[in-house]
């Protein structure tokens, strides 16, 4: 495989290993809970990047995959007593399939219309689930504690889930890299730059972008399943939190869309920034303002995202950190 020769491949493997081993070896739970949120954000950003950065379609409502994955998983585990592994896999596959069908419809829209329609999809699903009694309606689904016992107790279960989330994170990044270096990725880039031209050049745009949409749903759905399993419950506002969706766009753009490294760094920094501001005492009332100001400063002075800025000051980086 040519992929194995890419420096970035090994970097991804390394970062994933660090995520897994650091809290494990030091048995540091705070670190784990901090990293789990980073990992989730990285998963969301990396997969969203397949749409925004690679295909050029801004998905405002990407969180819908995450939420549906969470719901399906908790429903299967909670009400049907499935094991976690099979539940998240089924959730991933079904959400991905659903995205494919949905994509056939809404990917005919372009630009801001697509972006805003995805908000509509997310809100429609959220409101539907709020009314859907099989999934507990607005009360959501709460996992009985026995679900953790089946995995050797809460303590062990949460470690397992953490490692799985890190694995999904690693897979998301490798997927980003693999797509980027493939013929499929080249087709997506062409669509991003000019869809009409791409079609005339022979790219099957309707199929390609629907595949990208569907692909970008798979791992977030699994991550949603794991994350909400860890939380022990899922309710509509948390599962389909539009704001988190928009924050995911912020992470992608902050790091630099279209690259593999950018969204990862963007997600990590964004989570750390918000998390740190929350725990610094004196700032309590103003942490949001400070986060906003910092974000604005970054945007104004590094408008190409962090990667754009890094590439500019150190062009050779482009070859290593794609």
């Amino acid at each position, binding site marked *: 495989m040519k992929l194995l020769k890419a420096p970035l491949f090994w970097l991804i493997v390394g970062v994933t290993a660090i995520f897994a081993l650091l809290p494990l070896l030091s048995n540091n739970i705070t670190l784990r809970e901090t990293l789990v949120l980073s990992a989730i954000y990285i998963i969301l950003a990396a997969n969203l990047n397949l749409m925004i950065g690679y295909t050029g379609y801004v998905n405002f409502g990407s969180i819908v995959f995450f939420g549906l994955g969470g719901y399906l998983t908790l429903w299967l585990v909670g009400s049907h007593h499935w094991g976690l592994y099979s539940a998240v896999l089924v959730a991933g596959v079904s959400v991905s399939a659903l995205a494919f069908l949905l994509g056939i419809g809404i990917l005919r829209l372009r630009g801001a219309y697509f972006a805003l329609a995805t908000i509509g999809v997310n809100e429609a699903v959220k409101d539907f689930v709020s009314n859907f009694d099989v999934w507990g309606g607005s009360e959501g689904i709460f996992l009985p504690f026995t679900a953790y016992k089946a995995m050797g107790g809460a303590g062990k279960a949460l470690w397992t889930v953490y490692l799985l989330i890190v694995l999904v994170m690693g897979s998301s990044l490798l997927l980003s890299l693999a797509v980027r270096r*493939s*013929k499929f990725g*080249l*087709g997506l*880039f*062409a669509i*991003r*730059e*000019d869809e*009409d*031209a*791409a*079609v*005339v*050049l*022979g*790219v*099957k*745009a*309707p199929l390609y972008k629907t595949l990208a949409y569907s692909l970008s749903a798979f791992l977030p759905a699994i991550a949603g399943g794991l994350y909400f399993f860890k939380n022990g419950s899922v309710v509509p506002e948390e599962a389909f939190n539009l704001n988190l969706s928009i924050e995911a766009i912020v992470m992608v753009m902050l790091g630099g869309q*279209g690259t593999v490294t950018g969204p990862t760094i963007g997600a990590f920094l964004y989570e750390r920034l918000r998390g740190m501001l929350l725990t610094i005492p004196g700032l309590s009332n103003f942490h949001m303002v400070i986060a906003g100001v910092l974000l604005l400063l970054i945007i104004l002075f590094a408008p190409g995202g962090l990667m754009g800025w890094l590439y500019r000051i150190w062009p050779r980086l482009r070859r290593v950190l794609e």
Partner: protein
Amino acid sequence: MKPAILEVRNVTKAFGGLIAVKDVSLTQYQGEILGLIGPNGAGKTTLFNVINGVYKPTSGEVIFEGQKISGLPPYEVVRRGLARTHQIVKPLNEMTVLENVTVGACFGPQNLPLEAAQEVAAEVIEFTGLGKYADVLAGKLNIALKKRLEVARALAAKPRLLLLDEVLAGLNPSEVAKMLDVIRAIRDQGISILMIEHIMQAIMSLSDRIVVLNFGEKLAEGSPDEVANDPQVIEAYLGDPEMAKRILEEEEA
């Protein structure tokens, strides 16, 4: 006579009330360079768009190598061996020239894997004289280079028929002459060419036959000489080709 590669049969294309192409039929033979001229807004580009599937004809059909292609989406049309360039260039701005051309090679009729496509792209780039720009982002090229990029991308697909829409616009006479050599070389590879052009010396010297459109309808068809001397064509399109010379003489007098 050689067999036909492309047949346009009674094609009409309307946008709302406006009929841009009206009942046009034409035939292109294998290995031929066929010129398409006509006043601005005559429907030339629209006809191209119908041929390669960007638009569905309102009525009529397009036959390529004996098979009906009208109604197929553009990506299917390319895969059958019919590539085109755009009058209003459409470079993939944030991708390099090499990547642009690779897209053409990758998704064309040969459906090459990525690496093979890159090799083909590199060859085509040399052939079209874009060699030193291979790693430049396409958005950074000037208009003339972008036009050349259009040609390179279409060529990389290894089509059997190539549609060229005003690829000479914006070139000065010497550059036009160089580009004519490139086009002839393409034809010598056995690729048939259908081209739209407003630069008369060029199209007259290059084409085997010429079709003239006016207000969406076919006004004339024939060899360059026949067309150039057709009074209808002169009135609607050519005007007085000797004007420049006349003005020059006036000034000097």
